[in-house]
C-alpha cells in the first residue's frame, strides 16, 4: 500500500508541477477511476483536496476535532456518491457542498449550540493552526466566536467567495437570509475587532 501511495503521490506531484490544465486532466482521470470504486484513485483525490475541505470545515466549525470529523465524513460521503458526480461543477465545488452538508449534519446531531460552544471552549486547543498571522489571526479567532449561522455565511461568502445565492443554496436558506446574516456577522466582527485595533 505504501508503494502504491508513493506512485499515486508522484503522479499527483507531477501534475502539480505542470500547468493547471494537466492537473485538471489528471484529476479527471482519478475521478473516473474512483467512480469505478478504485480506492487508490480516491486517495489521490483525497490528498489533492483534503486541505481545501479541512480548511472549510475548520473555518465553519472553529474546532480542530469537529473539523477532522467533518472532513472524514465529507470524504466518506463523497466516496459513496462518486457515481453521481457528473462534472456539472468543479470537483472541488462538489466536495465543498458535501463538506458543508457534513458540517450542518453534525451540528444538527449535536446538542444545543450553546452546549457545543461551551464544550468546544473546554477542549479546544489554545491556538488553532491555520497559518494566519497578525491581524488575520485575530480575525480568524473573531470569526470562530460568531454565532453559527453568521459564521457559516461569513466563511462561505467573505472567505471562500461564494455568492449569496450559492452560499444560501449550500446552507439551505434564502439568499436574503444570507445577506442579513453577513450584515450581522460584519457588525459583530466590528464590535470584536475594534477593541483589538482592527479599524478602518
Amino acid at each position, binding site marked *: 500500500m505504501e508503494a502504491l501511495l508513493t506512485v499515486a503521490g508522484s503522479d499527483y506531484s507531477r501534475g502539480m508541477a505542470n500547468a493547471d490544465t494537466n492537473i485538471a486532466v489528471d484529476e479527471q482521470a482519478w475521478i473516473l477511476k474512483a467512480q469505478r470504486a478504485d480506492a487508490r484513485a480516491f486517495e489521490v483525490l483525497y490528498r489533492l483536496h483534503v486541505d481545501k475541505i479541512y480548511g472549510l470545515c475548520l473555518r465553519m466549525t472553529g474546532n480542530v476535532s469537529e473539523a477532522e470529523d467533518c472532513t472524514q465524513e465529507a470524504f466518506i460521503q463523497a466516496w459513496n456518491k462518486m457515481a453521481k458526480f457528473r462534472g456539472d461543477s468543479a470537483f472541488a465545488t462538489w466536495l465543498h457542498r458535501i463538506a458543508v452538508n457534513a458540517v450542518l449534519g453534525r451540528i444538527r446531531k449535536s446538542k444545543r449550540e450553546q452546549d457545543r460552544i461551551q464544550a468546544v471552549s473546554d477542549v479546544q486547543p489554545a491556538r488553532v493552526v*491555520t497559518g*494566519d498571522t497578525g491581524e488575520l489571526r485575530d*480575525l480568524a479567532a473573531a470569526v470562530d466566536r460568531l454565532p453559527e449561522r453568521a459564521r457559516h455565511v461569513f466563511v462561505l461568502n467573505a472567505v471562500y467567495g461564494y455568492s449569496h445565492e450559492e452560499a444560501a443554496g449550500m446552507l439551505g436558506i434564502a439568499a436574503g437570509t444570507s445577506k442579513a446574516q453577513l450584515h450581522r456577522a460584519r457588525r459583530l466582527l466590528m464590535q470584536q475587532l475594534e477593541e483589538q485595533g482592527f479599524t478602518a
Partner: protein
Amino acid sequence: MTEEFDDKLDRAARQLATEIAPERDLWPDIATAITQPRRSRWTPMFAQAAALVLLVGASSAITYVSVKNDSQPVVSIEPELVFEQTSFGANYNLGPGFQDARNSLRAELDVELMRLSPEARTNIQENLDLIHTAISDINVVLEKEPENVLLQQMLLRAYREELTLLSRVGGLTRNLTMRNDI
C-alpha cells in the same frame, strides 16, 4: 466608517487561508470506512417481519372474500387476542382515533365471528395470529433499532392490516376511513 471597515474586513477575509493541512493524516480512518462492507440494515429478522407483513396483506384479502360470501350462522368461539404494547420511537404515535376504532372492533369481533363458518373463523384467527406474530417480531427488532423509520412504518402497516381485517370481519368498513393520524 462602517463601509471602510467592511472593505477592510472583506480584504482581510480574502487573505485568510482557505487551504489548511490537518494536523494528522485523516486518510486511514476514511480508508477503513470506505473499504469495509456496509452493514446491511436488512437483517434476517427484519426481512422475516417484512415478509410477514406482506403475507398478512395477501391473506387478509383472501379472508375478506371468504367472509363476504359467508352467511351461515355458527357456534361462537373465544378468540384470544393479545395486543402488543409498542413504542414507535420519535416519529410516530398511535392516535386516539386508532385506539378507539380498534377497541370498538375488538368488542364487535365475538358477535361477528358467530355468524361465520368454522372454516372462515379459522382463517380469520390464523390471519390475526400472523399479524400478531409480525407485530411481535417487528417490536423485537425495534427494541434494537428504536429510531428505524422503516421498521416503524412496517409496524404501523401491521396495525393497519389488523384494523382492516377486524373491520372487514365486522362489516364496519363503512364507518372507517384509512387512518392518517397514526
